[in-house]
């Protein structure tokens, strides 16, 4: 009997443990992502995702990829090219033929950077990379391990003396214009006697500062056969393709009797006005380019060759001249101060060699374009950059000082709005409408009017009411919880949890509101409820507003809607093609729906030069009684 009881106990325990373990496992599998896939069905390697996404023929572990042996990331070293690649999984590095190390790039000696000098060029690269580059360019390695700064490295590489490297090839005496090192001359002969080069042998001979077309050298290279670009300037080329001096239509001056001559001695730095001087100047806004002659060479190209100093200035969309390298911001319409239209984004435009390249900043206004200018001798030089839009913490800030601290966020301070509550509502399952808003739409909460009546919100969005009380409210859903308490409605005063003002994103974020996301939650954070009080004479006469009368004005609705639209793609606002979406709010006064006037928003690509900050005067309505509902939804209508 005892034995049977023990067996029963044991069996019960096993069952209980099994059920418990199953529950724990089930709970575990619900939290996603749960496994590290060596390879996903889509073909990506080392991804933390759901088990169903893993390629069945590869490994998977119920842990993060960082903790697995096959997907642990480290540095992949390419010993042939001398290139280090961080954040690479071991598996992929091995597959590609690299050498993997768990250490970071900075801790690997073979990835340490030094200055590699290749003729008159320099690069901050690892030693093996320098060896590889030197071998590819056929020069001796010159690696300075002690130089760790890129600027210092570039400064180290100075132009080396160049000259004619003369040698015999295919029974003819030919030449290459290069440095002494590149020439690798066995014997150096730099004297010319009676107009003839001395000591010529079959070996290479280097003549410093001579052009290959110098008559004394007697090579088969004829002077000034064509022109070409080199380092942004126009040069003459001899018939062997060697570079000569800077291009000038004064051929004799440029040739200089076959000797190297400084560019400035041939012609002054060209600002783009002279097509027959190849001394292009980056700082003057010119660069060597091929001349597009068009029909019958109308427009006057260079006298010789096809290259000239092209002006590299650009023109922005507003017709302003932009220098080479200058960048500026481009927007889809109004920007900043909560004005960015729905669906808009910021762009950075750069002037590169006379062409404007437009680079979009991150979508959903996750990045904003910032701009500033530097004063130079030639005027202002604009610099723009896309950087992260730090809007996330704005709503948590309750003082103007913390709100406007640019180091801690991209926020702006708006004046208070009567009855505005931030973060008091909560999320909803109904797309586009917050739970509170949804509830407000489903319930009626407008009590019978009395002599002096107060009316609460949380009623139907479009209620059928009678009575003298009027409520004004903007409601919605909130991320931080706290539903508006509908039981308190009737007798409470108008409350706001932002009595001194509201901190909102300067550049409202965009949402993918067509997907299930947290857009509803963000929009629902702001709601406004204003109770307007009336007095009605006992016998005759109409009711008279005595408190919070401003809540019945359009201005109140506009102010409340501004808060909504500043949160993101919420409230009633205009999208980037200029369409106004009214579905983003519901403003109910008594039982009537009211409309917020369409905000004035500039639409269309424009250049963003920051304006001076102007303080706009706004009224700050206060008071109490009657109710107006303004339900803050997504702006929609993208």
């Amino acid at each position, binding site marked *: 009997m005892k034995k049977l009881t023990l067996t029963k106990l044991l069996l019960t325990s096993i069952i209980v443990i099994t059920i418990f373990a199953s529950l724990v496992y089930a709970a575990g599998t619900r939290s996603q992502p749960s496994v590290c896939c060596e390879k996903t069905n889509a073909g990506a*390697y*080392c991804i933390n995702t759901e088990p169903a996404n893993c390629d069945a023929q590869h490994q998977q572990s119920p842990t993060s990829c960082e903790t697995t042996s096959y997907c642990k990331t480290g540095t992949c070293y*390419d010993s042939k090219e001398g290139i280090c690649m961080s954040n690479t999984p071991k598996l992929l590095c091995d597959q590609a033929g*690299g050498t993997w190390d768990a250490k970071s790039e900075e801790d690997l000696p073979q990835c340490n950077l030094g200055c590699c000098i290749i003729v008159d060029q320099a690069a901050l690269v690892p030693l093996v990379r320098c060896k590889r580059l030197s071998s590819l360019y056929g020069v001796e390695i010159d690696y300075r391990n002690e130089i760790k700064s890129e600027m210092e490295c570039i400064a180290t590489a100075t132009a080396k003396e160049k000259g004619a490297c003369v040698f015999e090839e295919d029974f003819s005496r030919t030449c290459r214009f290069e440095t002494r090192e590149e020439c690798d001359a066995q014997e150096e002969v730099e004297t010319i006697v009676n107009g003839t080069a001395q000591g010529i042998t079959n070996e290479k001979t280097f003549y410093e500062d001579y052009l290959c077309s110098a008559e004394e050298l007697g090579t088969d290279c004829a002077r000034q056969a064509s022109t070409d670009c080199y380092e942004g300037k126009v040069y003459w080329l001899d018939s062997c393709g060697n570079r000569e001096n800077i291009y000038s239509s004064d051929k004799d001056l440029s040739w200089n009797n076959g000797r190297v001559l400084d560019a400035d001695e041939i012609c002054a730095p060209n600002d783009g006005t002279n097509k027959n001087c190849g001394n292009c100047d980056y700082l003057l806004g010119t660069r060597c380019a091929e001349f597009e002659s068009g029909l019958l060479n109308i427009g006057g190209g260079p006298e010789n060759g096809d290259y000239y100093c092209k002006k590299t200035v650009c023109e922005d969309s507003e017709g302003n001249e932009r220098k080479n390298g200058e960048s500026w911001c481009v927007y889809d319409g109004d920007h900043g101060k909560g004005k960015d239209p729905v669906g808009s984004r910021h762009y950075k435009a*750069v002037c590169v060699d006379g062409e404007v390249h437009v680079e*979009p900043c991150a*979508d959903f206004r996750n990045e904003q374009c910032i701009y500033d200018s530097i004063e130079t001798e030639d005027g202002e030089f604009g610099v723009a950059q896309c950087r992260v839009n730090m809007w996330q913490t704005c709503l948590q800030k309750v003082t103007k000082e913390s709100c406007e601290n640019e180091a801690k966020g991209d926020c702006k301070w708006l004046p208070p709005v009567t009855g505005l509550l931030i973060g008091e509502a909560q999320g909803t399952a109904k797309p586009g409408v917050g739970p509170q808003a949804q509830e407000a739409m489903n319930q009626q909460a407008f009590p019978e009017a009395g002599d002096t009546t107060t009316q609460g919100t949380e009623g139907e969005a479009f209620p059928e009411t009678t009575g003298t009380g009027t409520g004004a409210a903007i409601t919605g859903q909130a991320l931080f919880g706290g539903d508006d308490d509908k039981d308190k409605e009737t007798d409470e005063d108008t409350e706001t949890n932002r009595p001194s003002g509201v901190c909102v994103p300067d550049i409202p*974020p*965009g949402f993918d509101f067509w997907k299930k*996301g947290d857009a509803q939650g963000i929009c629902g954070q702001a709601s406004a409820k204003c109770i307007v009080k009336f007095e009605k004479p006992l016998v005759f006469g109409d009711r008279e507003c005595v408190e919070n009368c401003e809540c019945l004005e359009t201005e109140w609705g506009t102010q409340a809607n501004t808060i909504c639209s500043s949160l993101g793609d919420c409230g009633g606002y205009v999208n980037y093609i200029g369409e106004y979406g009214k579905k983003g709010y519901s403003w109910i006064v008594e039982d009537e729906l009211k409309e917020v006037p369409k905000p004035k928003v500039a639409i269309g690509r424009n250049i963003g030069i920051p304006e001076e900050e102007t303080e706009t005067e706004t009224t700050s309505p206060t008071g109490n009684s009657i109710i107006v509902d303004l339900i803050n939804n997504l702006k929609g209508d993208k």
Partner: protein
Amino acid sequence: MSINNKRGQVTIFIIVALVIVAAILVFFLWIKPSYITPTTGQFAFESCVEDVIEEEILTLGETGGYIKPEFYYNYQGYKIPYYCYTNEYYKPCVVQQPLVKQNFEEQLLLASKEKIYSCFESSVDEFKARGYDVREGEKKLNLEINPEEVVVKLNAPVTLSQETSQRFTDFEIKINSPIYDLLMISTSILQFEAKYGDSDTSTTMFFYPNLIIDKYKQGEGTTIYLLEDKQTRTKLQFASRSYAWPPGYGLVESGIEG
């Protein structure tokens, strides 16, 4: 020494000189040994190989150096492979292609191998048509991408016999191409993406004025990089998703599926 003797010596010298010149002319114009012309010599398939390589580089560049990209982003009809990717938000990407240049070389070899062999065979067929007896050995193809050029090395032992025999073994063809620069800049961009999640392409464009480097950020966090040589229109495009930011707070959806 008499004048007659001197005349005789001059005549001999002239005859010897003529014989030497004639021998040199015969040697170079008729015999043409393969070791003197280490490239394709009489095999006129250089231009065919050049066309094949140029075409394949253009095609491969559009798909980031893959014949058939496996993991890619669809962008304007192109399958653009991810060189670096994470499906999560706020995290650096995991490198998907650590050796960009080597991969391109391998894929280029794979894509052009049969076509290059075909170029060579066409050339051999021409010899056969001209009555040569041709004996071929096993072929091996290798290629290397270097600055400003792609070097194709074909090891194809072949003996041509008619009255005399000639043996050729190695053929080396150099094709001008800017693909090396594009691959090295891509590697540099990839290094930045894996570390910092972004790369400043406008600065790079100033160092390489012959290149256009554009980047296009997509809504879900992917960045498309497009590198193009202005002169040859050779392209290289690839995608990366690193340190992506969600729309809104991103509390509901943590990222996209891998």
